[in-house]
Each structure stands twice: as structure tokens, then as C-alpha cells.
């Protein structure tokens, strides 16, 4: 098995053992939330592997949640059915969104996803008879598979992290082999890739739909876990949050999704706990200042993500240091953050 494969097995072992060691409600809930975010962020990073960035990932997350919630609560379907159904629905929606937008230049694509995200969020708030509006949807049935009823944090812990590990494994697989090489080629040079027969539009669409599906699955599980959803966790702020997680981990680095989700969520917990002590004013989202600065610092100094950036830094210190900001420090076609890619660990290179 490859190095990545063993890494996953090790991770699975640690995760399985964790609840036996630290099983407080707070820790479990936190881990569950992190697990869901890992899935969403890995989806975003998959998209990043083809050179696209989405500012609407939270919209797909939310659509998955609402779809599954409505199908199970109002139509009486079992959540075991509505989660996959919601995922398929959202994937279909992503396909429709992608048709006109994926051929836009990258910076316009970001804006299109921004627009879609905002529109979806507004609809969530406005279509009150369907979605309950700003007050949200209650009484979402819990997940039930066969005889097993998922009601406790622990149940969802195993489910969520099983899904997260699966998501990581599948994403890692996709970035290897012919598909992975094609994606990285598109990232490297669309024109060069097309000249070799790589169907740029088709790969872009596949990855976009997949990344939306990832978010939708996480959203659907979220709905049955918390059993209450409202539009606010699915706003532009949330999309930016997911972007920050992806950026911290490295926009094209699958394992970075894990790292980013963990790091940023933990950071958020710390910030929420500590900040009111320093700034005792009530209300508002001070965290945005910190996240904003974090985002800027990372994109300037660690564009390939924190881990890779630190490794690069070590390498860079060995060479002659460049003055930051000169054109010489970056070659014309270099794309930090969006140009870094995972190496296939198994037999991909002679």
C-alpha cells in the first residue's frame, strides 16, 4: 500500500480510539464539526486542483442540508435515502451552474460562484413557506439505517469520520493516475493541456460537480445531526471560512484539507474564547479581522499552504534570499498556491 494509504489507516486507527480517551460532549461535537468541514474543504481543494476557486461552497453545503431535511421531514423519506438523494440533486444543480460558468476565466468564475452563493442564501431566507426563512427548519428526523438509530454525538462521530476518510481517500485517488495528471496539467497550462488532447471543459465540470457533491453530503449529514438548520451557516462568510481552511492547508493539497479544517476550526474556538477578554465590547464578528489578516499573510508568504510553505521556506533560506516583491522572486508563469500539487506516491513516476 502507498504511503498515503498507510497514513489513512493510521488516521482511522487514531480516530477510532479517540472517543475511548476523550469523550466529552464538547470534544465530540467539535470533532464532528471538524469532520464535516474536512469533507467540504477537501471538495474545495479538489476544485482547486483544476485551477478554479469557488466562493460558493457554503451554498452547496446548505443546499445539501435543506434538500435532505425537506425530503425527510416533509416527504417522510428515510434519511438514509435522502442523504444520497440530496447529494445527487445538488450535484445536478452544480452541473447546471457549471455549464455557463466553467468556461469563464478563473477570476470571473470566482465571481460567478460568489453570485450563486449569495443568490442561494437569499433564497434560503426569502422562500419562507419552503425553508422556514430566517428562523430555519426544525424537527429534522435523525438518521436511521436499518435498525440503527443515529442519535448521539458518538454515533455521528463514527459516521462523519468514516465519510471524511472516504472523502480523503477518493480525493487522493482522483489526483493520481490519468485523471489527476490531467487536472494538474490543466492547472499548469490550459493551452498546453488542450494541445495534448486533455478535455479541459469535461474535467473541469467533473471536478466541480464532485466538489459540490462533497459539500452536499456533509450538509445533509449536518442536517440530521443537528436536526435544525437555518440560512446563517451557509452565507458568504461561511464560504470565505471554507476558503480560508483550504488556503491554510494549501489550495491543491488534499491532505491540506484535513490540516486546514482542523487548524482553522481550532483557531476559531480559541479566538472566540479569548477575544472578548481582550476586546470586551459586545456583539459583532471581531474574528473577521483576524481571519482577514490571516488570509492575507498566508496568500503572500505561504501560498502553498502552511505546511508546504514552511518546507519551502527552509529550502529558500538555503538559496540566496530574494527581496520579497521583486519580479525576480517569481517566474512569470508561477502560480503560488494554485500551482503546487501532490506527488503521486505510488508508481506514478518511473
Amino acid at each position, binding site marked *: 500500500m502507498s504511503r498515503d494509504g498507510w497514513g489513512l489507516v493510521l488516521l482511522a486507527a487514531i480516530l477510532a480510539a479517540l472517543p475511548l480517551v476523550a469523550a466529552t460532549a464538547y470534544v465530540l461535537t467539535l470533532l464532528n464539526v471538524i469532520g464535516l468541514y474536512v469533507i467540504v474543504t477537501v471538495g474545495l481543494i479538489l476544485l482547486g486542483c483544476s485551477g478554479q*476557486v469557488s466562493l460558493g461552497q457554503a451554498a452547496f453545503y446548505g443546499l445539501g442540508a435543506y434538500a435532505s431535511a425537506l425530503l425527510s421531514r416533509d416527504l417522510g423519506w428515510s434519511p438514509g435515502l435522502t442523504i444520497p438523494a440530496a447529494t445527487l440533486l445538488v450535484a445536478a444543480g452544480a452541473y447546471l451552474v457549471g455549464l*455557463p*460558468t466553467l*468556461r*469563464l*476565466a*478563473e*477570476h*470571473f468564475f*470566482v*465571481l*460567478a460562484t*460568489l*453570485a*450563486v452563493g*449569495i*443568490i442561494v442564501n*437569499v*433564497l434560503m*431566507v*426569502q422562500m419562507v413557506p419552503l425553508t422556514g426563512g430566517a428562523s430555519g427548519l426544525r424537527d429534522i428526523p435523525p438518521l436511521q439505517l436499518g435498525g440503527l438509530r443515529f442519535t448521539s454525538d458518538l454515533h455521528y462521530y463514527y459516521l462523519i469520520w468514516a465519510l471524511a476518510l472516504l472523502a480523503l481517500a477518493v480525493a487522493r485517488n482522483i489526483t493520481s493516475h490519468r485523471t489527476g495528471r490531467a487536472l494538474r496539467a490543466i492547472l499548469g*497550462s*490550459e*493551452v498546453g493541456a*488542450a494541445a495534448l488532447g486533455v478535455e479541459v471543459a469535461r474535467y473541469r465540470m467533473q471536478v466541480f460537480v464532485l466538489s459540490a457533491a462533497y459539500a452536499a453530503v456533509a450538509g445533509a449529514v449536518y442536517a440530521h445531526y443537528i436536526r435544525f438548520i437555518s440560512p446563517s451557516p451557509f452565507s458568504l462568510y461561511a464560504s*470565505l471560512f471554507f*476558503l480560508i481552511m483550504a*488556503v491554510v492547508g494549501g489550495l491543491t493539497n488534499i491532505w491540506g484539507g484535513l490540516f486546514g479544517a482542523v487548524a482553522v476550526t481550532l483557531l476559531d474556538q480559541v479566538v472566540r474564547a479569548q477575544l472578548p477578554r481582550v*476586546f470586551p*465590547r459586545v*456583539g*459583532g*464578528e*471581531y*474574528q*473577521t*479581522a*483576524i*481571519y*482577514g*489578516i*490571516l*488570509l*492575507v499573510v498566508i*496568500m*503572500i*508568504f505561504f*501560498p502553498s499552504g502552511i505546511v508546504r510553505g514552511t518546507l519551502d521556506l527552509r529550502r529558500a533560506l538555503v538559496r540566496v534570499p530574494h527581496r*520579497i*516583491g521583486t*519580479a525576480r*522572486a*517569481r517566474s*512569470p508563469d*508561477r*502560480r*503560488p*498556491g*494554485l*500551482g503546487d500539487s501532490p506527488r503521486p506516491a505510488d508508481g506514478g513516476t518511473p
Partner: protein
Amino acid sequence: MVSLLPQLILTGLTVGSIYALVALGFVLIYNVTGILNFAQGEFSMLGALLCATLLGWHLSLPLAALVAVAAVCLIGAAMERLTIEPAFGSHPLTLIIITFGVSMAFRGLSLMIWGADPYTLPEFTPGPALQLLGGVLVRQAMWAIGLSIAVVLGLFLFFSRSVPGAAVRACADNAFACRLLGISPRRMSLVAFTLSAGLGAVAGIVIAPITGATYDMGLSLGLKGFVAAVIGGLTNAPAAVVGGYLVGLIESLTTGYLTPGYSGAITFLVLLLVLVIQREGLLHAAQRRQA
């Protein structure tokens, strides 16, 4: 309700003039540097709040406005030097994310400094509202509309009749040739950001007497100004101004005739449509010039 229409149009033109100013800021920076500056709206917010604070320190309105605009220009320059220049040469998406980060940082810092409550600014020329064409127009709205037209004319003259203006335009067209002529694209970038920051600040100070000044006014102003700029094609300043008025009217009309909540969605739907219709081709995007 037919009688509502003139009022809606007047309101639309008023906010539209502000969107036009913000859009101009976008277009200026995009033309010179190729960057989409998502912190543009925050310049307006900073201008309004700084002006309010200065007024609180008993400066006269003209002086407070002037100092506030100057301060925001400095902030814009600082932003360019601290966050854009170090990332110079990066992929355009990296830069867009950076400007998003900066806008978040500005918002958060404003919240810390000024708190969440709205501040009020006085009208430039206090007095009763004007009855116009079946609707009511507050006096400040005349300032908004008038200023936006004046700024457009001023920019037009600057770019077409003055030497520094020509230099900026030349740089926008061909950065490499500019370097050969001794014009530094880096300096042009600094000029663009400083100028756009000033534009944003003016917009904020002009609209604040009507809508109030809060720490989060920049986000929606920026997004709508951005839509306006895209409608104008992102490179065409007069079209961006028209776009601004268009966005203002669409927003006003949808708020009046549909449920107010939907107006945001409609504006972004317009953005989507414009993006999709106006798509750039593969080779064009691949040739995105960075000085």
C-alpha cells in the same frame, strides 16, 4: 402602484450614483493592474466613519471630509504597498483572495474601533427635501448625483488631457512598453490604489448622510459597485458609471415592487448574466498581462 415609480427612480438614481463612484474605483484599479480589488467598498466605509469621528472632534464638515479622504488615500496606498506589492506577479486568483482578506480585516478592525452602532453624518447643505417629478429627493441626493458626474468628468479630463493621466492609460495598455519609457508600473499601481481609495472615500462620505455609516456598509456597497463595474465591462469607465445607475435602479425597483429581500439576489443574478454573456475566451485569459 404607478405613483411609486418616480420615487423609486429617484432613489435608484441616488444610490446608483454612489455605486457608480465605487465602480469607477474598481475599473481604475483593474485597468492599471489587472486586479479585482474586493476591498473597494471598505474605502467608502472608512471614509464615512473617519469623517464622522473627525466631526465628533469638532472639525468643520469640509475640513473633516478633506482629512478623511486624504487619510483613506493613505490607507489605500498602504494597502498597496503591504499586501499587493509583496504578492506582485502572483496568479490573479491569489490577488483576489488577498483583497478579500484585506476587506475582511478592514471590517473587523472597524468593528473594533467604531463598534456596531451606526454613526450619522450631517447633510452637506441642510434643508427641506425637494419635490421633484412626483417624488421626493433629499438635498444630499443632489450632492450624490452631482458629485458622481463631476468625478466622472474629472477623471475623463485627467486621463485624456493630462500627462500623468496618459501615463496611467498607457500603463494599462502595455505595461512592458511603459517600463521601456521609464514609467514604473509599480508606481502606477500605487497611484491607482491611492486614487481609487479616494474615490471610495468620497462615495462613502456623500452617501452616509442618507443611509448612515456602519462598519459593514462596505461589503454591500463594494459588491454592488462591483456588479456595476462588470456590467460596464470592467475596463470601460463611462459604462461602469451607467452600470452603477443601472444597478441602483434595479435595486430600487425590485425593492419597491417585489419583496425587499429579493433585491440582493436580483442584483447578483444580473451579475451572473453579465458574466456569462460577456465571457472571455481561453487565449485571452491565458494572456492576462502582469507587468
